[in-house]
């Protein structure tokens, strides 16, 4: 009805794209999304947190005053001070340096795991749902049965088989998240493949690959971006949990979960060695969550969270 007519609101947006015509469309889109994320306080906070941790991961060695494993002689169990911002742990390692340097590991692991899971899950979701039939049925029944197990239990099961290491954690993330991503993609594909433009493409003899790429994938991207953000935050949590349980990243790597676990026996002596990595985990998860929430508003307008 009348209320739906596109009004003057579209004008500033089209002007903005005109100014930045020189840049590729992808950048303009991301720039636009970033500006929208900063329009709300909560998503602005989340985005800032994520960017800060990202900077830590990229420039960690430049920021950290000590190395992750250096045991400073005679400086064990020191409370936070100007020299050791977050204090030192029971072995005399600088907690601040370990937290900063640990960002790279957790972000890389969670990020790569999410990326692989999203790519594999998307491909399976796209083609399986578009083709339909028995293969689709069997694939998704299997995924459903995987989803019935709690993520941590599944992770412990897999790690029990392949043994703890960085690569194993990556494998775990992929196994745990592929079914979830595939399911999200599938639901969008199922509604899109019945639309007139997809059927018209089929009638013009387009190949499956080309229809999936040109006509179906673009409809999947908004939901996929949101899902990827959500998966990323859970992946951080899972990597930290596995580190804490001792089946993830192995010592002496500065993994936050591992740090919390190692500092636990000494909590009355060096509480800072536990609190700071724990706070880092919490802040990163909160940051990613807030940013993902904001992303949902930008990418899927109208669908209230």
């Amino acid at each position: 009805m009348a209320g739906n007519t596109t009004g003057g609101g579209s004008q500033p947006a089209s002007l903005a794209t005109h100014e930045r015509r020189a840049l590729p469309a992808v950048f303009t889109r991301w720039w636009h999304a970033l500006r929208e994320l900063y329009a709300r306080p909560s998503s602005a906070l989340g985005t800032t947190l994520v960017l800060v941790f990202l900077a830590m991961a990229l420039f960690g060695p430049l920021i950290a005053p000590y190395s992750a494993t250096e045991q400073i002689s005679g400086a064990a169990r020191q409370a936070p001070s100007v020299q050791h911002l977050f204090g030192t742990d029971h072995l005399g390692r600088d907690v601040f340096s370990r937290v900063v340097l640990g960002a790279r590991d957790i972000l890389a692991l969670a990020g790569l795991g999410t990326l692989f899971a999203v790519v594999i899950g998307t491909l399976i979701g796209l083609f399986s749902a578009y083709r339909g039939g028995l293969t689709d049925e069997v694939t998704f029944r299997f995924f459903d049965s995987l989803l019935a197990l709690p993520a941590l239990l599944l992770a412990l099961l897999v790690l029990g088989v392949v043994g703890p290491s960085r690569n194993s954690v990556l494998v775990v993330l992929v196994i745990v998240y592929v079914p979830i991503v595939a399911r999200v993609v599938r639901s969008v594909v199922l509604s899109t493949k019945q639309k007139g433009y997809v059927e018209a493409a089929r009638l013009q003899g387009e190949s499956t690959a080309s229809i999936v790429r040109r006509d179906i994938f673009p409809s999947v991207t908004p939901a996929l971006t949101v899902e990827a953000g959500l998966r990323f935050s859970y992946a951080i949590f899972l990597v930290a949990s596995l580190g804490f349980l001792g089946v993830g990243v192995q010592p002496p790597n500065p993994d936050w979960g591992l740090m919390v676990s190692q500092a636990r026996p000494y909590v009355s002596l060096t509480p800072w060695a536990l609190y700071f990595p724990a706070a880092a985990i919490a802040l990163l998860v909160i940051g990613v969550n807030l940013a993902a929430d904001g992303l949902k508003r930008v990418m899927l307008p109208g669908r209230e969270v």
Partner: protein
Amino acid sequence: MSDEPHRALEVEGLTVTYRRGQGSLDAVRNVSLRIAEGQAYGLVGESGSGKSTLALAIMQYLPENGLISGGAIRLAGQELATLPGEQMRQVWREQIKLVPQDPGSSLNPSLRIGDQLDEALSDGGETRGGVRERSLEQLRQVHIADPERVAASYPHQLSGGMQQRVLIAMALAGQPSLLILDEPTTNLDVTTEAAILDLVCELVQSHQTAMLYVSHNLAVVAAVCDRIAVLYAGELVEDLTPEQLRSQPLHPYTVGLLDSLPRVGQRAGVDPLLPIAGNMPRLDEVPAGCVFAPRCPIALQLCHELRPDLEATQQGSLVRCHRWREIQAGAVDLRAARPANVTAPDESLSGKIALETKDLVKHFPVRRSLREALRRTPPRSVHAVDDVSLQVGQRRTLGLVGESGSGKTTTARCIVGLVERTGGEVSLFDIALAPGLDGRDAAVLHRLQMVFQNPEEALNPHRTVGDVLQRSLERMRGLGKTEARQQAGRLLEAVRLPPSYLDHTPGQLSGGEKQRVAIARAFASNPDVLILDESVSALDVSVQASILNLLTDLQSEQGSAYLFISHDLAAVSYLADDIAVMYLGQVVEIGPTEQVLQPPFHPYTEALLSAVPRIDAAAGIERILLSGDLPSAVDPPGGCRFHTRCPRLLGEICRTQAPPWQQAAPGHRYRCHIAPNELAAMQSPAFRDHITTVSP
């Protein structure tokens, strides 16, 4: 004026504004109307005219961002616009009732009909038995034959028409002062619509309620209402009686609407539709002068500069036009100024059969429940299409009509291969076509194209119009990139869109424009046969007319054959050379258009024809109402499938024996036990008057 009838509703100078971001838009501007008790007032307009906004404003039910920024609304003397919330709820409960467009979503799916009615009727002081008695009485009033069964049913167990009757019964409970019907028949089949319209007419007269009937369909409103207001871009442009609408409408927009509406029997080659050029202005681009001036065939400089007032004519109608006196006096010819460049179809090349189906069958298996599987109940299936044989001649148009559930869309999808047929044959110029798309050669695919129903889903929202057309040209004609780009511009030209649209995304186009691009895409390969599945049904009347004319033009330019599928007999008869009528998966009648539209015809065709709402109140055509609902296609009735609803039922023979094909004329056959001469004697000769035949 004390002798005026009692005014139930008075709307004075109403302006409704929607807030949008920083700015605001006036969706309804300065509209006044009065409805007396017992009067039926029709509100007509195309999408974007503001008719729904106006109805919502009267009910005080505008969305969050809408507000009444001027004027007054009085119901039985009481001002509604300033009424506090609690009192407004009282008004909703007792005085204003609404019959909504979608009956399915307006009834609570988890409560029985009787309980919902009881709740609406109960005033708290009655026994349950007493309320139920009144509920049943209310159901009887809307001509529900077995109210006890309906009251015990859940909404999903009733057909759409039955649900709408229940909602009307509910709305009429407690004698409301104002009944608002918002497109109550738009989602219903034509035979059901006819029955509901009859019911509404009868109830308005018997209840002395004021009724506001909102619709996009001029013919429906003219059939039901005492007075009609035509809305355009938020303004009331004409307010007149149905008689004045038929004899002498004065506003160019009203005339344009009437000329855009195909009548049953009107043929493209003989008596073309005269569509209105252009589109309705967006709310943020309302012209400074007359709102209709940019599309008006007789607009003067004055019309673009000065907004006309709503003036009263001697006959009591109101019109908002600078030139209405000249129009009334016949000094300007509205139609001459709007040439319809429809080229008459060239018959010379026809003769060969382009598309043929032989005994096409499609059964969809029904999943058995666990219990059925354990008991080894044989699997059942939906008989969507049964033994359908059609032929479409080269350069000719076959129209396929039928109500929802008749199997016409499944037939189309089987032909193009989107659905794999269960049996029968499909051939294109004697090339046998495989059931599925995978088994068909690309070259064959390109000769058979289809345009779908929903314009909103016709185009990939992520690609520009140019990309879409270019891709089709590259694939189907093997053109290079630059050449395809040029040809894409030419395709746009062929569907009468400017080349600048190549860079537009579908989001920037209106529904009609999207459908034009979809047609252009289908024509990229110069198909031998084009299937149009309800392709104009979702469009506004004036847009629909221009697309129909476009299709006629394209046919004579390109020489494609059409299979035109629609539930709208008038649109089908406008385009089609031949018509096939489908009922419950079978073709019941097939023949040349002029012959199918006049007796003798199949009793189902007769019912369809009599139900079509007509502007020119068809003299002598008696409405034939079909009893009951469409039977389930899982176990279609034995004998003649139409026997459960047939008004001309003979008796036992119809129930047990499948009817034979009867030859009414060369090429005109129907499936019935009654012979042509007997059938012709039963059927009203009045139908003959409505055909404009091709000159002999």
